[in-house]
């Protein structure tokens, strides 16, 4: 990885750099930091990465629709982007950052009472005394409902992309403290209890497992979001990589993410 002067990475700016393997990133709000890292000059000697869809408004609606006959169909924005990519470089890699925030959508705010669950046998000490204990399987089922679209999305992605050079990026674990979230959502979430980071971390673990299972079923690559150097000894994302909202990651984190993605692609391309 190297950081040079600003480089224009917009997909509309032309064809991939000759001699480099192309990869295109798309997704919702977490792609903003990727775009910023690219604009700040992230580069790799062998891999050229660009973003093609970035933001919730640029990728509106469900990622999968169902036609009147029940047949699933990719979101039109993704579909159009994939066609553009295929026209430019049929061998390009696709990097999906879609659908990683479901665990926060499920349980970032727990209300009263708060909840907790046992992820594994060793985590008993982590159960909050005043929290409602939920069966892990119930939480899994709830999260599975939230990520149900992904079970249709991933196969459609491989089908439309026409190849298996697809990497799904899992979201990164939460930060160990709640202060960023609390200060950011002070007004919007007034009176609403934020789920402790320890519990959100457990939700994140389950989310990753579900994402991994979806990807394995579709035969596509999955990269877990706890890259070395970005998390503390307990697995939480370091505060230095968090944005002020307490949820999204900054461009420094995105830079490491891009390094990881590029390394992953390079390894498989050389082999």
């Amino acid at each position: 990885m190297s950081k040079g002067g600003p480089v224009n990475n917009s997909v509309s700016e032309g064809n991939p750099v000759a001699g480099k393997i192309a990869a295109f990133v798309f997704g919702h709000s977490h792609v903003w930091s990727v775009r910023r890292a690219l604009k700040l000059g992230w580069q790799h000697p062998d891999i050229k990465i660009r973003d093609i869809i970035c933001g919730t408004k640029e990728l509106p609606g469900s990622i999968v629709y169902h036609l009147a006959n029940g047949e699933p169909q990719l979101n039109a924005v993704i579909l159009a982007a994939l066609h553009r990519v295929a026209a430019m470089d049929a061998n390009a890699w696709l990097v999906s950052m879609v659908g990683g925030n479901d665990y926060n959508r499920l349980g970032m705010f727990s209300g009263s009472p708060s909840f907790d669950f046992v992820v594994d046998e060793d985590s008993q000490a982590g159960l909050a005394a005043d929290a409602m204990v939920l069966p892990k399987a119930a939480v899994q089922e709830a999260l599975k409902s939230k990520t149900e679209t992904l079970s249709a999305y991933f196969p459609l992605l491989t089908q439309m992309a026409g190849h298996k050079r697809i990497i799904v990026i899992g979201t990164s674990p939460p930060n160990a403290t709640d202060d960023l979230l609390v200060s950011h959502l002070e007004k919007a979430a007034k009176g609403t209890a934020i789920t402790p980071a320890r519990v959100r971390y457990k939700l994140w673990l389950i989310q990753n497992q579900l994402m991994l299972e979806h990807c394995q079923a579709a035969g596509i690559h999955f990269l877990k979001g706890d890259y070395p150097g970005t998390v503390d000894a307990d697995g939480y994302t370091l505060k230095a990589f968090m944005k002020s909202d307490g949820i999204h990651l900054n461009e420094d984190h995105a830079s490491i993410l891009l390094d990881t993605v590029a390394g992953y692609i390079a390894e498989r391309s050389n082999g």
Partner: protein
Amino acid sequence: MAEDQVGNPCPYSDLPETSFWRRSVGAIPLQDIDPVLNPKFRISARDRVATAGSCFAQHIARYLRNSGFNYFVTEPGHPILPEHTLKDFNYGTFSARFGNIYTPRQLVQLFERAYGLRQPVDDVWTDNGAFVDPFRPFIQPHGFHCATEFHADRAQHFGAVREMVEQSDVFVFTLGLTEGWENAVDGTVYAICPGCGAGVHDPAQHRFRNFTVDEATADIKAAIAFMKARNPGLRVLLTVSPVPLIATFENRHVLAATTYSKSVLRVAAQTVSDCDTRVDYFPSFEIITSSASRGAYFADDLREVEEIGVQHAMRCFFRNYIGKQPKLTRIPAERTPVMPTTSERLNDLVCDEQRLEDLL
């Protein structure tokens, strides 16, 4: 002689119509039959009504909930869990997450366990790495994934049972069976026969019991006394499930075994009710099973109760104990608006705000 007859009329002649079969059953439309007479108490919309017992108790819970009554659920699950998950994991099926309680002995022992007065020798089963509660073996799919989860959930469950015991205004208990299986060492009654769907059957450990009318009566009395000792104002409504035995372990025909079992429970319920002004018997069993319905209230398997039969029973329940009619229509699920949760709403807000930072 004629004067004597005038002076000593037949003692039945002044009895109300409800005392006569033809006038109150045989010659009136089925849907108008109401066998409830002089209910001992009323249930207000504010009363916390708890339910426990066999499957039929779930119908009472459902109607109370759908009719805006204060169905008292002390173990409701968490709002982050969607409706189908709550259902799959038996949250709200009964007031606490105890599953079906078929025999009065089970109820007494549940209370004892919840208050630390009974520690069963056979307290947890394992099955392919999962931990199964012998006293609610089907409370969630595939059991508990580890011992920590099992014990944490058990402790929480007992807390919910204690809350139900101490804070209910009305407790509706549906008596289901007299046949059961107990541990041969300490007499703790299982929810099912071990080995039938869960657990492993061991003839040396697991003993069949068919509770007598005296035992059933004593157990019901003990359960109510246990609750009243902690909740003196409690009112209790006993019902007998009309659902026949699915199988009997007695060496007798299942039809005869069903009649015996329901008869014992019916007598026990009446006996307890007759000696306590705050305990009443509600005849849902009679409404569903009487010859007046000509079997119309049972499904094709002659075992499951059809909704029309439940409706009849609940009309009588609401008329006599509540004074209004239940809501018999439900809003189709697909028409129920799905409101975003706080987590969904605020996460969307956070995501939308991301664009504001893209000022590079």
